[in-house]
Protein backbone atom coordinates (compact mmCIF):
# COMPACT_ATOMS: atom_id res chain seq x y z
CA UNK A 1 0.00 0.00 0.00
CA UNK A 2 1.33 3.44 -0.84
CA UNK A 3 1.29 6.38 1.58
CA UNK A 4 -1.91 7.61 -0.09
CA UNK A 5 -3.77 4.79 1.71
CA UNK A 6 -6.40 4.65 -1.03
CA UNK A 7 -7.13 1.00 -0.31
CA UNK A 8 -8.27 1.97 3.21
CA UNK A 9 -11.03 4.24 1.92
CA UNK A 10 -14.66 3.03 1.67
CA UNK A 11 -14.64 3.86 -2.03
CA UNK A 12 -15.25 1.42 -4.88
CA UNK A 13 -13.02 1.22 -7.95
CA UNK A 14 -15.71 3.05 -9.94
CA UNK A 15 -15.81 5.70 -7.22
CA UNK A 16 -12.05 6.23 -7.40
CA UNK A 17 -12.26 6.50 -11.18
CA UNK A 18 -14.96 9.15 -10.80
CA UNK A 19 -12.88 11.17 -8.31
CA UNK A 20 -9.66 10.86 -10.34
CA UNK A 21 -11.42 11.87 -13.57
CA UNK A 22 -13.10 14.85 -11.91
CA UNK A 23 -9.79 16.00 -10.41
CA UNK A 24 -8.00 15.71 -13.76
CA UNK A 25 -10.76 17.61 -15.51
CA UNK A 26 -10.65 20.45 -12.98
CA UNK A 27 -6.88 20.63 -12.62
CA UNK A 28 -5.75 20.51 -16.24
CA UNK A 29 -7.23 23.85 -17.41
CA UNK A 30 -5.88 25.69 -14.36
CA UNK A 31 -2.31 24.31 -14.23
CA UNK A 32 -0.85 27.18 -16.25
CA UNK A 33 2.75 26.74 -15.13
CA UNK A 34 2.89 23.22 -16.56
CA UNK A 35 1.84 24.60 -19.95
CA UNK A 36 4.73 27.03 -20.09
CA UNK A 37 7.77 25.88 -18.09
CA UNK A 38 10.01 22.82 -18.38
CA UNK A 39 8.60 19.90 -16.43
CA UNK A 40 10.72 17.00 -15.17
CA UNK A 41 9.65 13.91 -13.25
CA UNK A 42 7.64 12.63 -11.57
CA UNK A 43 10.45 11.24 -9.44
CA UNK A 44 8.27 9.68 -6.78
CA UNK A 45 7.21 10.29 -3.21
CA UNK A 46 10.68 9.40 -1.91
CA UNK A 47 12.38 12.17 -3.90
CA UNK A 48 13.10 14.97 -1.43
CA UNK A 49 15.32 17.56 -3.07
CA UNK A 50 16.51 19.05 -6.36
CA UNK A 51 20.22 19.02 -7.04
CA UNK A 52 21.46 22.58 -7.60
CA UNK A 53 24.94 21.50 -8.67
CA UNK A 54 26.54 23.94 -6.25
CA UNK A 55 28.41 23.68 -2.96
CA UNK A 56 28.99 25.82 0.10
CA UNK A 57 32.34 25.66 1.82
CA UNK A 58 32.31 24.33 5.35
CA UNK A 59 34.13 26.66 7.68
CA UNK A 60 34.62 24.28 10.57
CA UNK A 61 36.59 21.52 8.82
CA UNK A 62 39.24 19.27 10.34
CA UNK A 63 42.86 20.43 9.92
CA UNK A 64 44.16 19.73 6.43
CA UNK A 65 40.72 19.07 5.01
CA UNK A 66 38.82 21.20 2.52
CA UNK A 67 35.12 20.45 2.94
CA UNK A 68 32.12 21.63 0.99
CA UNK A 69 28.47 20.83 1.42
CA UNK A 70 26.18 20.20 -1.54
CA UNK A 71 23.34 22.66 -1.99
CA UNK A 72 19.88 21.36 -2.78
CA UNK A 73 16.40 22.80 -3.06
CA UNK A 74 13.98 20.74 -0.90
CA UNK A 75 10.70 19.82 -2.53
CA UNK A 76 7.56 21.28 -1.00
CA UNK A 77 4.61 19.04 -0.11
CA UNK A 78 1.29 20.69 -0.85
CA UNK A 79 -2.00 19.17 0.13
CA UNK A 80 -5.59 20.37 -0.37
CA UNK A 81 -8.08 18.47 1.81
CA UNK A 82 -11.69 17.91 0.79
CA UNK A 83 -14.69 15.79 1.73
CA UNK A 84 -17.15 13.72 -0.26
CA UNK A 85 -20.54 12.59 1.03
CA UNK A 86 -20.80 8.80 1.11
CA UNK A 87 -24.35 9.03 -0.23
CA UNK A 88 -22.98 10.78 -3.31
CA UNK A 89 -20.43 8.01 -3.85
CA UNK A 90 -23.18 5.40 -3.45
CA UNK A 91 -25.33 7.26 -5.98
CA UNK A 92 -22.41 7.33 -8.40
CA UNK A 93 -22.10 3.54 -8.08
CA UNK A 94 -25.79 3.31 -8.97
CA UNK A 95 -25.12 5.29 -12.12
CA UNK A 96 -25.90 8.85 -11.07
CA UNK A 97 -24.41 11.38 -13.50
CA UNK A 98 -24.82 14.53 -11.38
CA UNK A 99 -22.66 13.62 -8.40
CA UNK A 100 -21.91 16.50 -6.03
CA UNK A 101 -18.13 16.97 -5.93
CA UNK A 102 -17.98 20.68 -5.18
CA UNK A 103 -15.32 20.35 -2.46
CA UNK A 104 -13.07 18.35 -4.78
CA UNK A 105 -13.45 21.02 -7.47
CA UNK A 106 -12.53 23.73 -4.98
CA UNK A 107 -9.53 21.75 -3.71
CA UNK A 108 -8.32 21.25 -7.29
CA UNK A 109 -8.56 24.97 -7.92
CA UNK A 110 -6.72 25.82 -4.69
CA UNK A 111 -3.90 23.45 -5.56
CA UNK A 112 -3.57 24.76 -9.12
CA UNK A 113 -3.51 28.33 -7.83
CA UNK A 114 -0.85 27.42 -5.25
CA UNK A 115 1.32 25.79 -7.93
CA UNK A 116 0.94 28.70 -10.35
CA UNK A 117 1.58 31.26 -7.62
CA UNK A 118 4.76 29.47 -6.51
CA UNK A 119 6.08 29.35 -10.08
CA UNK A 120 5.14 32.85 -11.21
CA UNK A 121 5.14 34.86 -7.95
CA UNK A 122 7.50 32.81 -5.79
CA UNK A 123 7.12 31.30 -2.33
CA UNK A 124 9.78 32.62 0.01
CA UNK A 125 8.99 30.29 2.91
CA UNK A 126 9.99 27.22 0.86
CA UNK A 127 12.88 28.81 -1.02
CA UNK A 128 11.14 29.17 -4.39
CA UNK A 129 11.87 32.34 -6.37
CA UNK A 130 9.15 33.07 -8.90
CA UNK A 131 9.50 33.99 -12.55
CA UNK A 132 8.08 37.51 -12.20
CA UNK A 133 10.15 38.48 -9.16
CA UNK A 134 13.34 37.05 -10.70
CA UNK A 135 13.07 39.01 -13.94
CA UNK A 136 15.63 41.81 -14.26
CA UNK A 137 13.43 43.59 -16.83
CA UNK A 138 11.33 46.55 -15.72
CA UNK A 139 7.71 45.41 -15.22
CA UNK A 140 5.25 46.75 -17.79
CA UNK A 141 1.90 48.06 -16.55
CA UNK A 142 -1.04 46.51 -18.38
CA UNK A 143 -3.37 49.37 -17.45
CA UNK A 144 -7.12 49.55 -17.83
CA UNK A 145 -7.35 49.75 -21.61
CA UNK A 146 -7.37 46.18 -23.01
CA UNK A 147 -6.89 47.41 -26.54
CA UNK A 148 -3.38 48.44 -25.51
CA UNK A 149 -2.48 44.92 -24.36
CA UNK A 150 -0.90 44.01 -27.73
CA UNK A 151 1.43 46.99 -27.44
CA UNK A 152 2.48 45.99 -23.91
CA UNK A 153 2.99 42.34 -24.86
CA UNK A 154 4.97 43.34 -27.96
CA UNK A 155 7.15 45.54 -25.75
CA UNK A 156 7.80 42.57 -23.47
CA UNK A 157 8.70 40.39 -26.46
CA UNK A 158 11.07 43.11 -27.66
CA UNK A 159 12.71 43.20 -24.23
CA UNK A 160 13.28 39.44 -24.39
CA UNK A 161 14.74 39.63 -27.90
CA UNK A 162 16.92 42.53 -26.79
CA UNK A 163 18.29 40.34 -24.00
CA UNK A 164 19.19 37.64 -26.54
CA UNK A 165 16.27 35.39 -25.66
CA UNK A 166 14.77 34.03 -28.86
CA UNK A 167 11.24 32.53 -29.06
CA UNK A 168 8.94 30.71 -28.83
CA UNK A 169 7.37 32.84 -26.15
CA UNK A 170 4.30 32.16 -24.08
CA UNK A 171 1.86 34.34 -22.20
CA UNK A 172 0.37 33.55 -18.80
CA UNK A 173 -2.67 35.75 -18.22
CA UNK A 174 -4.09 36.22 -14.73
CA UNK A 175 -7.87 35.68 -14.49
CA UNK A 176 -8.80 39.35 -14.73
CA UNK A 177 -6.55 40.03 -17.71
CA UNK A 178 -7.73 36.82 -19.37
CA UNK A 179 -11.38 37.82 -19.01
CA UNK A 180 -10.62 41.24 -20.45
CA UNK A 181 -8.88 39.64 -23.41
CA UNK A 182 -11.73 37.23 -24.12
CA UNK A 183 -14.27 40.03 -24.00
CA UNK A 184 -12.42 42.31 -26.35
CA UNK A 185 -12.41 42.50 -30.12
CA UNK A 186 -10.24 45.05 -31.80
CA UNK A 187 -11.25 47.33 -34.65
CA UNK A 188 -12.76 45.20 -37.38
CA UNK A 189 -13.83 42.52 -34.91
CA UNK A 190 -10.51 40.71 -34.81
CA UNK A 191 -10.29 38.88 -31.45
CA UNK A 192 -7.67 40.29 -29.12
CA UNK A 193 -6.83 36.73 -28.07
CA UNK A 194 -5.67 35.85 -31.59
CA UNK A 195 -3.68 39.06 -31.92
CA UNK A 196 -1.79 38.34 -28.69
CA UNK A 197 -1.18 34.77 -29.78
CA UNK A 198 0.41 36.02 -32.99
CA UNK A 199 2.67 38.40 -31.11
CA UNK A 200 4.05 35.80 -28.71
CA UNK A 201 4.12 33.01 -31.30
CA UNK A 202 3.46 30.39 -28.64
CA UNK A 203 0.93 29.30 -26.03
CA UNK A 204 -1.37 31.72 -24.28
CA UNK A 205 -2.99 30.40 -21.15
CA UNK A 206 -5.37 31.29 -18.32
CA UNK A 207 -3.29 31.44 -15.16
CA UNK A 208 -5.23 31.60 -11.88
CA UNK A 209 -2.84 32.72 -9.14
CA UNK A 210 -1.08 35.22 -11.42
CA UNK A 211 -1.74 38.92 -11.05
CA UNK A 212 -1.47 40.73 -14.36
CA UNK A 213 0.47 38.61 -16.84
CA UNK A 214 3.90 37.18 -17.62
CA UNK A 215 5.59 36.85 -21.01
CA UNK A 216 8.27 34.18 -20.99
CA UNK A 217 10.39 31.97 -23.18
CA UNK A 218 8.78 28.52 -23.43
CA UNK A 219 11.09 25.51 -23.15
CA UNK A 220 14.85 25.68 -23.47
CA UNK A 221 15.65 24.90 -19.84
CA UNK A 222 15.08 28.45 -18.55
CA UNK A 223 12.36 27.66 -16.00
CA UNK A 224 12.53 24.31 -14.25
CA UNK A 225 9.64 22.59 -12.49
CA UNK A 226 10.59 19.31 -10.82
CA UNK A 227 7.81 16.97 -9.75
CA UNK A 228 8.34 14.45 -6.97
CA UNK A 229 4.95 12.87 -6.47
CA UNK A 230 2.67 14.12 -9.22
CA UNK A 231 -0.84 15.21 -8.34
CA UNK A 232 -2.64 12.38 -6.56
CA UNK A 233 -5.68 11.82 -4.37
CA UNK A 234 -5.09 10.26 -0.98
CA UNK A 235 -7.29 9.13 1.91
CA UNK A 236 -7.43 10.70 5.38
CA UNK A 237 -10.37 9.13 7.23
CA UNK A 238 -14.13 8.64 7.15
CA UNK A 239 -17.24 8.45 9.31
CA UNK A 240 -20.72 7.20 8.58
CA UNK A 241 -21.57 10.23 6.43
CA UNK A 242 -18.37 11.53 4.89
CA UNK A 243 -15.04 10.46 3.42
CA UNK A 244 -12.17 12.90 3.93
CA UNK A 245 -9.61 12.91 1.16
CA UNK A 246 -6.88 15.20 -0.12
CA UNK A 247 -5.18 16.23 -3.32
CA UNK A 248 -1.42 16.22 -2.98
CA UNK A 249 1.81 16.78 -4.86
CA UNK A 250 5.46 17.52 -4.17
CA UNK A 251 7.53 19.85 -6.34
CA UNK A 252 10.33 22.36 -6.58
CA UNK A 253 10.80 25.21 -9.00
CA UNK A 254 13.82 27.29 -9.97
CA UNK A 255 14.63 29.97 -12.49
CA UNK A 256 17.75 29.25 -14.53
CA UNK A 257 17.53 32.29 -16.81
CA UNK A 258 15.90 35.24 -15.03
CA UNK A 259 16.10 37.45 -18.13
CA UNK A 260 13.88 35.03 -20.10
CA UNK A 261 10.66 36.57 -18.73
CA UNK A 262 8.97 39.96 -18.37
CA UNK A 263 6.24 40.70 -15.81
CA UNK A 264 3.18 42.71 -16.80
CA UNK A 265 1.58 44.22 -13.73
CA UNK A 266 -2.19 44.84 -13.38
Amino acid at each position, binding site marked *: *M*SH*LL*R*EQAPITEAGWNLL*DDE*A*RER*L*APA*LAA*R*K*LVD*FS*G*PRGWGHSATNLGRVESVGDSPDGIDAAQRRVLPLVEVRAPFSVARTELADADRGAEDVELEELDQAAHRLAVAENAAVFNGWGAVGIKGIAESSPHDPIALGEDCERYPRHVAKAVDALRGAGIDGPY*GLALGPEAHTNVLETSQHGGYPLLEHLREIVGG*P*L*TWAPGVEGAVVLR*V*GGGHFLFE*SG*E*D*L*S*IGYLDHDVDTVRLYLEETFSFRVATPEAAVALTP
Partner: protein
Amino acid sequence: MGFDQYHEPPAELPDRTRTFARLCASLTEEAEAIGWYEQRMAVEPDRDAQAIMRDAQGEEFKHFCMDLEFLLRRTPLWREIAEGILFTEGDIVEHGEEAEEEAVEDEASRGVPVSGSESLGIGDLREATS
Protein backbone atom coordinates in the same frame (compact mmCIF):
# COMPACT_ATOMS: atom_id res chain seq x y z
CA MET B 1 -1.36 8.72 -41.93
CA GLY B 2 -2.49 5.53 -40.27
CA PHE B 3 -3.58 4.96 -36.69
CA ASP B 4 -2.39 1.39 -36.37
CA GLN B 5 -0.95 1.92 -32.90
CA TYR B 6 -4.44 1.76 -31.45
CA HIS B 7 -5.84 -1.65 -30.73
CA GLU B 8 -9.05 -0.26 -29.29
CA PRO B 9 -11.25 2.60 -30.62
CA PRO B 10 -9.11 5.74 -30.00
CA ALA B 11 -12.13 7.79 -28.93
CA GLU B 12 -12.70 5.39 -26.06
CA LEU B 13 -9.12 5.63 -24.83
CA PRO B 14 -8.00 8.23 -22.27
CA ASP B 15 -5.40 10.79 -23.40
CA ARG B 16 -2.75 9.19 -21.24
CA THR B 17 -3.25 5.78 -22.87
CA ARG B 18 -3.15 7.28 -26.37
CA THR B 19 0.16 8.97 -25.54
CA PHE B 20 1.44 5.69 -24.13
CA ALA B 21 0.42 3.86 -27.32
CA ARG B 22 2.11 6.48 -29.52
CA LEU B 23 5.36 6.11 -27.63
CA CYS B 24 5.12 2.31 -27.83
CA ALA B 25 4.70 2.63 -31.61
CA SER B 26 7.64 5.02 -31.74
CA LEU B 27 9.77 2.61 -29.71
CA THR B 28 8.96 -0.17 -32.18
CA GLU B 29 9.88 2.03 -35.15
CA GLU B 30 13.21 3.00 -33.61
CA ALA B 31 14.04 -0.65 -32.95
CA GLU B 32 13.18 -1.52 -36.56
CA ALA B 33 15.36 1.31 -37.86
CA ILE B 34 18.28 0.11 -35.71
CA GLY B 35 17.90 -3.35 -37.26
CA TRP B 36 17.67 -1.95 -40.78
CA TYR B 37 20.85 0.12 -40.38
CA GLU B 38 22.63 -2.94 -38.96
CA GLN B 39 21.73 -4.92 -42.08
CA ARG B 40 22.66 -2.09 -44.47
CA MET B 41 26.06 -1.64 -42.85
CA ALA B 42 26.69 -5.37 -43.02
CA VAL B 43 26.41 -5.34 -46.83
CA GLU B 44 27.76 -1.83 -47.60
CA PRO B 45 31.37 -1.94 -48.95
CA ASP B 46 31.87 1.87 -49.08
CA ARG B 47 33.48 3.01 -45.80
CA ASP B 48 32.17 6.59 -46.06
CA ALA B 49 28.61 5.36 -46.60
CA GLN B 50 29.06 2.99 -43.68
CA ALA B 51 30.21 5.83 -41.44
CA ILE B 52 27.11 7.86 -42.28
CA MET B 53 24.87 4.91 -41.53
CA ARG B 54 26.69 4.29 -38.26
CA ASP B 55 26.03 7.91 -37.31
CA ALA B 56 22.36 7.59 -38.30
CA GLN B 57 22.03 4.41 -36.28
CA GLY B 58 23.40 6.29 -33.27
CA GLU B 59 20.48 8.70 -33.59
CA GLU B 60 18.08 5.78 -33.53
CA PHE B 61 19.79 4.42 -30.39
CA LYS B 62 19.16 7.79 -28.75
CA HIS B 63 15.52 7.94 -29.87
CA PHE B 64 14.90 4.38 -28.70
CA CYS B 65 16.35 5.15 -25.26
CA MET B 66 14.31 8.34 -24.87
CA ASP B 67 11.10 6.53 -25.81
CA LEU B 68 11.94 3.74 -23.41
CA GLU B 69 12.74 6.08 -20.55
CA PHE B 70 9.42 7.91 -21.04
CA LEU B 71 7.48 4.65 -20.98
CA LEU B 72 9.34 3.39 -17.92
CA ARG B 73 8.62 6.64 -16.04
CA ARG B 74 4.93 6.21 -16.77
CA THR B 75 4.88 2.54 -15.79
CA PRO B 76 6.42 1.84 -12.38
CA LEU B 77 6.04 -1.95 -12.65
CA TRP B 78 7.79 -2.01 -16.05
CA ARG B 79 10.52 0.18 -14.60
CA GLU B 80 11.02 -2.10 -11.63
CA ILE B 81 11.34 -5.16 -13.85
CA ALA B 82 13.70 -3.30 -16.19
CA GLU B 83 15.92 -2.38 -13.26
CA GLY B 84 16.39 -6.06 -12.54
CA ILE B 85 17.45 -6.84 -16.10
CA LEU B 86 19.16 -3.85 -17.72
CA PHE B 87 22.89 -3.19 -17.23
CA THR B 88 23.47 -6.40 -15.28
CA GLU B 89 26.02 -9.20 -15.75
CA GLY B 90 25.16 -12.89 -16.00
CA ASP B 91 22.16 -14.86 -17.24
CA ILE B 92 19.63 -12.51 -18.81
CA VAL B 93 16.72 -14.96 -18.70
CA GLU B 94 17.38 -15.71 -15.05
CA HIS B 95 17.47 -12.01 -14.18
CA GLY B 96 14.24 -11.51 -16.14
CA GLU B 97 12.37 -14.22 -14.28
CA GLU B 98 13.61 -12.98 -10.90
CA ALA B 99 12.86 -9.33 -11.65
CA GLU B 100 9.33 -10.08 -12.83
CA GLU B 101 8.53 -12.28 -9.86
CA GLU B 102 9.87 -9.80 -7.31
CA ALA B 103 8.24 -6.78 -8.90
CA VAL B 104 4.80 -8.32 -9.32
CA GLU B 105 4.82 -9.82 -5.83
CA ASP B 106 5.95 -6.53 -4.38
CA GLU B 107 3.22 -4.59 -6.17
CA ALA B 108 0.59 -7.15 -5.18
CA SER B 109 1.64 -7.12 -1.54
CA ARG B 110 1.31 -3.33 -1.49
CA GLY B 111 -2.08 -3.49 -3.16
CA VAL B 112 -0.85 -1.33 -6.04
CA PRO B 113 -2.74 -1.78 -9.30
CA VAL B 114 -0.46 -3.51 -11.81
CA SER B 115 -1.35 -1.02 -14.51
CA GLY B 116 0.61 1.87 -13.02
CA SER B 117 0.98 4.45 -10.30
CA GLU B 118 -1.83 5.99 -8.27
CA SER B 119 -1.20 9.53 -9.40
CA LEU B 120 -3.60 11.36 -11.69
CA GLY B 121 -0.94 11.19 -14.40
CA ILE B 122 -1.19 14.86 -15.33
CA GLY B 123 2.53 15.61 -15.68
CA ASP B 124 3.72 17.95 -18.40
CA LEU B 125 0.91 19.93 -20.08
CA ARG B 126 2.92 21.96 -22.56
CA GLU B 127 1.33 20.36 -25.63
CA ALA B 128 -2.18 20.74 -24.24
CA THR B 129 -2.13 24.54 -24.16
CA SER B 130 -5.10 26.22 -25.78
